[in-house]
């Protein structure tokens, strides 16, 4: 059996002295898609943030092993270079830095870490344009400031575009469906599905079952009060939708 992609053991994490994650355990194997569902405030986004290394989250106890190494010892940029990707719920706008500049800097950093050759500008632009096309984004999109004035759908598709360029091992999708209409949701989901393979794992954080119609998970976990209170297969999400979160609490 291959090594797990991610092992989370009894993870307890605080924000401003308040316990948000209260003993989470989770194992994700290569190629698996895990959905994390749960009511508002259950700690879903916190889990994604802790894994990506955002400041302001204090890990009190427990451990997180990613590809056999202690993830918590790595800086956020090191995690990204090691293959962790967070698709943000609310991507920030960075006026004055073009999307192309941002993507190039990012891809350069990750490729350099992997020991891959740096892509020259024409090669990179060609690649970026192709990926844009597949996500139904116009090439002008690359010239604009990072997320500047993007619609909600464009911001989310930009996250998927970055993911497609960085080819992560473990992608964390934080409420990628929020603020998306059905069409945008389908495009985003297709972008994700195109990246699914036997080596790449996904953790899909969502409030609604809807997204899971498009990105079909192997496992569904329900988070409540900072703990996983129920785990199951795809059908658990459907049951939740029918009965509501009050059912498991």
């Amino acid at each position, binding site marked *: 059996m291959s090594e797990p992609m991610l092992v989370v053991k009894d993870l307890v994490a605080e924000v401003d002295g308040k316990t948000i994650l209260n003993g989470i355990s989770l194992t994700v194997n290569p190629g698996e898609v895990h959905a994390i569902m749960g009511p508002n405030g259950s700690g879903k986004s916190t889990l994604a943030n802790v894994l990506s290394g955002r400041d302001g989250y204090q890990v009190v106890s427990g451990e997180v092993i990613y590809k056999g190494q202690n993830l918590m010892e790595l*800086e956020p940029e090191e995690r990204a270079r090691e293959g962790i990707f967070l698709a943000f719920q609310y991507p920030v706008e960075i006026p004055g*830095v073009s999307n192309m500049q941002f993507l190039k*800097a990012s891809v350069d*950093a990750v490729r350099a870490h992997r020991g891959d050759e740096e892509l020259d500008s024409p090669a990179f632009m060609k690649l970026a344009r192709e990926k844009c096309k597949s996500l139904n984004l116009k090439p002008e999109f690359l010239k604009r400031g990072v997320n500047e004035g993007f619609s909600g759908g464009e911001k989310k598709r930009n996250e998927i575009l970055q993911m497609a360029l*960085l080819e992560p091992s473990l992608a964390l999708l934080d409420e990628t469906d929020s603020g998306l209409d059905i069409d945008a949701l389908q495009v985003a989901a297709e972008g994700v599905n195109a990246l699914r393979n036997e080596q790449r794992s996904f953790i899909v954080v969502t409030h609604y079952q809807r997204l899971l119609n498009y990105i079909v998970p192997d496992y569904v976990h329900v988070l409540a009060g900072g703990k996983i209170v129920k785990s199951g297969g795809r059908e658990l999400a459907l049951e939740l939708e029918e009965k509501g979160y009050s059912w498991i609490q």
Partner: protein
Amino acid sequence: MMISPQELKQQITAANQQKTGLEWLSVAEKANTVFAQASIPTRKTEEWKYSPLTPLLTQDFFSVQSQSGKLEKSAAETVYGEIQNAHRIVFVNGLFSQELSDCSDLENQGVLTLFSNCNDEQRSLVNEHLGTVCKLEQHVFAAANYSAMQDGVLIHAAANTKLEQPIHLVFLSSEQSTPSHAQTNLLVVAETGAELQLIEQYDSLGQQVQLFHNHNAELVLKPNSRLLHLRMQVEDEALCHVNGLHIQLAQDSHYEQHSINLGSQLKRNDIHVNFNGNNAYCRLNGVFLSKHKQHIDNHLNLEHAVPHCNSDTVYKGFITDQSRAVFNGRIHIHKHAQKTEAHLNNKNLLLSNKAELDTKPELEIYADDVKCSHGASIGQLDEKSLFYFQSRGIDRATAEAMLCLGFVNEMVELFPNQQVQSVITERLARFFNDVDKLKSLWSLES
């Protein structure tokens, strides 16, 4: 050794005794009198409160008038050659260079000439306007300039003409072994319905340019004329530069300025805009950057004296290390200037706890039917944005540099000229010289 302001005044007065060949300038005599009565600003002078003249009091700029010296044309062209399809007029250390300039077309058409080459008609045009927009009593360095300038440029756009190519005015400074001073002048008269573009580039070749450059300009926009003015002050940091720009807008005229201003030992920009006719418009977009122990002071004053005029002013500042920057932007709405719409904003990024910024947006309104706003903010790099970069594998130092460039670039992108943008990009890369890698990113074309 440090001299007193009175001694500085004596030095300037002595320096200004030199014959200039411009004795026909009627403003010179008045300027002489004004300067004789004026005092050199000190820290007690409100308008100069945050900009001590220490560099002028500790280095002797005034014993020696600047020399153009020997400059290879090929070297000079590396500074400004990127801007093509423009009429070029080049000054080296304040002195006109025939060899480097390329503006004979405009000279033949009577659109452009040096003060020293003016014919009688042009002399009377200069005398009609010079010193009418700029209030010498309020600007001691302008008074010094007008009493003994080395030379000036007259640009005269005839009524209802459109200059297709921009005029590129280059003030190049080069390495100087001893400190010296230069005084230059510019007068633009855009007649009714005229339209032109002016690119000003203050730049240096080499380092340790010990020059005090005192430049003053008056722009007279007649009814319905348009001027697009792009300014780059990107000289060596050893230079001292005091720059006055006085603009008069007649009815239906349109003035738009974009500027980038790098700090130096001492840099002071005064921009005064007088609205003299209804429906005139003025846009001032500027970005200033200072590092090391540089000093940069931006003083803007918009006099809305008549009704139905609009202005939009946005200045951004980037201040780091032990440098010091000043922004003072004033909108003055006179009693009769009803239906004015005027907005002014100054946003700053302060990156070091040893840097200092003094910002003062001012709004004085005496009319009762106007729409105005003013504001200023000082901030640091946004943590959320930095994390976004880091989450994509970009290290923190690069992320910081990219965010800084982005902050500045937001203003650079507004320059409506690709060639000028590209010159600025190169100078910025030099300014942020530790981020070599960013230059290639910056020039990514799509």
